[in-house]
C-alpha cells in the first residue's frame, strides 16, 4: 500500500482523516500515485495538479524521505521506501498566510 499525506484542506475536501492508503498498480511514480489518488477521490482532481496540463499546482510541493521531489519527472520512480509503504508521500501546501 502506498501512503499519502494530504494537506488539511484537501483531507477535509476528500473527507478523510489521517493518511490515505492506495493500491497503485505498476511502477510507483508521482503520476501513478496521483492517478490512483484521483481515481479514489475524484473531488481532488484539479486541486493538486492542473486538470489540463497535469502540472503540479505552484503552491504545492511533494516530499518523501526528507527529499524534495517536486521537480522530479512525473514518471520517475518514487523512493523505494514510498513504494514499499515504509514512508509516506507528503503533499505539502506552501507555508504562506493569507
Amino acid at each position, binding site marked *: 500500500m502506498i501512503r499519502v499525506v494530504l494537506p488539511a484542506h484537501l483531507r477535509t475536501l476528500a473527507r478523510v482523516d489521517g493518511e490515505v492508503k492506495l493500491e497503485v498498480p505498476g511502477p510507483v511514480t508521482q503520476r501513478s500515485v496521483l492517478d490512483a489518488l484521483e481515481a479514489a477521490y475524484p473531488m481532488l482532481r*484539479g*486541486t493538486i495538479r492542473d486538470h489540463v496540463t497535469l502540472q503540479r*499546482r505552484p503552491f504545492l510541493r511533494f516530499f518523501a524521505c526528507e527529499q524534495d521531489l517536486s521537480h522530479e519527472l512525473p514518471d520517475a520512480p518514487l523512493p523505494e521506501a514510498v513504494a514499499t509503504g515504509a514512508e509516506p508521500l507528503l503533499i505539502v501546501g506552501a507555508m504562506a498566510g493569507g
Partner: protein
Amino acid sequence: MSRVRVLVGTRKGAFVLTSDGTRARWDVTGPHFGGWEIYHLKGSPVDPDRLYASQSSGWFGQVIQRSNDGGKTWESADNKFAYDGPTGTHLWYDGTPHPWGFARVWHLEPSLSDPDTVYAGVEDAALFRTTDGGGSWQELSGLRTHTSAPLWQPGAGGMCLHTILLDPSRAGRMFVAISAAGAFRSDDAGATWRPVNRGLQSEGIPDPSAEVGHCVHRIAMHRSRPGVLFMQKHWDVMRSDDAGETWREVSGNLPSDFGFPIDVHAHEPETIYVVPIKSDSEHYPPDGKLRVYRSRTGGQEWEALTRGLPQSHCYVNVLRDAMSVDGLDPCGVYFGTTGGQVYASADAGDSWAPIVRDLPAVVSVEVQTLP
C-alpha cells in the same frame, strides 16, 4: 409565513443566514468550507434547496460544491473549466498580449427553469454552462472568441466575468459583464455575442467611447422589465432602456458615482440601490459614512439611507456581488462589507441592522425568499 435565506460568500468560507418573514432574528450556520474563498453561492429559482457554490484557493484551485438541502450538506461537483479550443491572448495591464488562463469562478447563475442548468462566469473571462447539475462544464466559447476579445484587458481584480443576467421574458437572451471589457448581450442562448456599451464613457482608456474596454462593475434588471438595465460602472451609474443598445448616465446627485454593487427593488422596477465609494484608489465610503443610496426614479435623484448604518469612521468596501434583495413586502435589502458585516433592511432601505458583524471579508450576498 415566508422565510428568508441569505447566502454569504467570504474570503474564508460560506455562511447561511436564515430568518422568518419578520427578518428580526437570524440563525447563522458556517463557516462552510472554512479557509477557502467563496466567491459566490446561489440557489436555483425553481428548486431553492439546490444551491451551488464557488470555492477556490490559491493553493488548491477551483472547487464547485452543490447542495440539495438548502446548504445543510454539500457534495463536490465537477471543477474542470477547460476553454474550448485555442485560447489566444488578451491584453495585459501594460498593453502587451497575455495568454488566456483559467483562475477561478466568480459568479454562478442558475437557470430560471432547470435546476440542473447553471452558468458560470470565470476569470480569465469566459462563460461556462452545466446542464447536468455540475456533473460537467462546457464553455460557451462564442463570447471568448468574439473579435474584440484580443483587446480585452483585466481590471485590478483580474479579467473576470462577474455578472450574468438571464432575461425571463425572452428565451435565449442573456447579458454578461466583464471587467474591464464591458457588457455583452446574446440573443441565441450564448452562442454568439455582441458588445452593448454605446453611451459608456471611460476616461483613462485610449478612446473613451470605445466599443470595449469599459470597467463595468455590475448590471441589474427587474424581472418585469428585462429591457431596462442599471449599471454601476467603475465611475458612473448608467441606465439603458433598450436592452443595452444605448446607455445614459443617471449618477445625478450621488456623492460619488464610483462603486461596485447595484440592485433593484423586488416590487418597484424604478427603485434602485447603490453604495457610493470614494474613489477607485480609496475603496471606502466618502467621509467615513456608510450610506446606501436609493433612487425611486430609476436614477438621477438619489436619497441617502443611513439609519442603522455607521456614520463615522467607517472604511469598509461593498463588493460587486455583495448586495441582494428578497421578494417579501416590504422588500428586504441586504449587503455585506469587507469588514465582515452583513446588513439587512426589512423596510426597503429605510432602516438597517447588522445580521452578523464579524465575518471574514464578505465577497457575495444572495437572498432566497422561501415559502
